């Protein structure tokens, strides 16, 4: 927890708001008719393969990794946009893995998600007032004038001022940064407790990114919001997060508070990842850790440690036995055989 004043205000802060255990999500691979005739076996893309973590109330927890590592799928499974293949999801202590229908709808008031592309996540034929107020109508919370009042209020909160100027516009009349603010407004109008933010700033112009990030940080204080932040950009992750989990091919390879993780990365993959990030300083000589090859396909996952074919420190054990995520230092977890 980086913010002490925040902690003092909210006593419940240390309780776990979201917890996942042995979470798996496999997608079956489509086969042609002929292939179906000749093989019985189905193959799967193992997008998320046995992931466990918990997020405490008020925390910003980041899932980071390269494309295809399963970070987005994990986020979507948690907000129940996708059914997990196996594993458990808990929200405020209650098992929500199998939740359906009316109960799921009620849960969605408390969990929201915002997406990467504000050009795709807003309906082009809906005015801002309808887009932002839509959740209120779906949940039967407000209509007409009351809806308008709430929409104006929330637009003001996301920095679209004066809000009266925006409510009758369509998404195409807004810039990318403004659209992402609208998407944010829509997701906080129900006053959720938990939000999944899937690459919310990666399509926004550089000069505007930090304003969106700061807005999200301010909601944590004002609304007591807890975030699962998903990003490929570790520099952004470092700025925003309390805790970070690095994923590789569907598994968490390292997890911990951001400071120890950035100062003392222990997993060879994390080390390579951090050494590859450009630093805005021309006078800084950097040592790059080279990795062999590329990320293998999530259909044919390497045996043992899934990182071993690219690892500069691999041993015989690595190709045979899968390392477990173990606590190496307090709160710092690493899945690597080198750690023992």
């Amino acid at each position, binding site marked *: 927890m980086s913010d002490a004043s925040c902690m003092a205000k909210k006593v419940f802060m240390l309780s776990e708001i979201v917890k996942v255990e042995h979470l798996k999500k496999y997608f079956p691979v489509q086969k042609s008719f002929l292939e179906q005739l000749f093989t019985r076996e189905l193959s799967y893309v193992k997008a998320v393969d046995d992931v466990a973590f918990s997020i405490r109330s008020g925390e910003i927890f980041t899932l980071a990794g390269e494309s295809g590592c399963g970070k987005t799928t994990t986020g979507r499974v948690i907000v129940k946009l996708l059914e997990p293949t196996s594993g458990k999801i808990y929200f405020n202590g209650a098992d929500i893995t199998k939740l359906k229908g009316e109960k799921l709808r009620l849960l969605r008031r408390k969990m929201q998600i915002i997406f990467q592309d504000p050009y795709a996540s807003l309906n082009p034929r809906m005015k801002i007032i309808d887009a932002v107020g839509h959740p209120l109508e779906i949940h039967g919370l407000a209509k007409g004038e009351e809806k308008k009042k709430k929409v104006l209020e929330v637009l003001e909160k996301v920095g679209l001022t004066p809000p009266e100027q925006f409510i009758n516009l369509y998404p195409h009349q807004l*810039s990318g940064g403004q659209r992402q603010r609208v998407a944010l407004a829509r997701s906080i109008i129900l006053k959720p407790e938990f939000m999944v933010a899937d690459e919310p700033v990666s399509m926004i*112009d*550089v000069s505007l990114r*930090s304003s969106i990030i700061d807005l999200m940080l301010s909601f944590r204080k004002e609304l007591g919001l807890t975030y699962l932040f998903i990003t490929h950009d570790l520099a952004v992750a470092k700025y925003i997060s309390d805790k970070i989990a690095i994923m590789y091919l569907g598994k968490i390879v390292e997890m911990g508070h951001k400071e120890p993780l950035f100062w003392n990365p222990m997993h060879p993959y994390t080390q390579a990842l951090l050494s*590859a990030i450009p630093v805005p*300083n021309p006078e800084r000589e950097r040592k790059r850790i080279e990795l062999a090859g590329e990320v293998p396909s999530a259909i044919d996952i390497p045996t043992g440690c899934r990182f071993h074919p690219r690892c500069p420190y691999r041993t015989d054990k690595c190709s045979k036995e899968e390392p477990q995520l173990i606590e190496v230092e307090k709160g710092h977890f690493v899945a690597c055989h080198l750690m023992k």
Partner: protein
Amino acid sequence: MPLLEVGSLTIDYPTSRGAIRAVEDISFSLKKGETLGLAGESGSGKSTLGLSIIRLVPYPGVIVKGHIKIDETDILKLPEDEMRFIRGRKAAYIFQDPMTSLNPVKRIGAHFIELIRTHEPNTGKEEAFERTKTVVKNLGILSERINDYPHQFSGGMRQRIMIGLAIALNPDLVIADEPTTALDVIVQAKILDLLESLRKVYGMALILISHDLSIILERCDKIIIMYAGHMLEYATSIEMHRNPKHPYTQGLLQSIPNIELSDQKLVAIPGSPPDMLNPPKGCRFWPRCSYAKKICRVKEPPLIKVGRNHFVRCFLYGKKGVHVERNRKS
């Protein structure tokens, strides 16, 4: 003698609602072996500027003013058939999207052989084939793989192939337009390392276009900061990092997170980039500038020299800097 000299370049895109001035009055030069970074947000005109150097400004864009000299020849005056031989042999372009830039029904090797034999018709098939193998090997790809099709390659490998196609004819200048935007960080670092090492081996000059100021600062000798079609600042990267002059550059540097700093405070630039159909009068940046004065809203600031190899387009430096002509030589 500079390899590339761009002088007062101005490019318009006529639309039904009036012309969009995508690039206005830009001058710079580049020597052999140098690396220049073009940094700016989307819509700043950096890609249009890059494309104009090989005279491929997309329709309906027109170059309304200025000159582009490669090795003293003004390419804007060349007939199209001569221009074709400048492209590829003198100056080559690496496009942003490696997924759509390769022909899906052609083997990788065929792309190279076609390129080599179009530009050098006297080359035999065998020789072209051997040259292809050497280039592909220099890209860090097994030479057997030239018989594969583009879909059998990953995004990073396709981008390597794009780089290979750009350098195959040994050009003096390579323009790389966001070459790593679609790629992950580890692959990005590898591709940029590859570009850097090839640049040294082949002695080319490189123009790197990117919205990511971190990459530009890390990889380039000189930097141009573009905003709404204008060059707001021009300096060596060390100077740009130590001593940024333009409020926009200062703002950009404060808005990018740096993993080497802890407890960094990011500061966003207020407002958003202008609508290019109705750009603000005077300095294009004044509506977002916290130092804006009255004069900024009426008059366009000239490019002012503020140090050795350091130029800025801002009224803040009117008195300290020495006023210079716009089509200066570096």
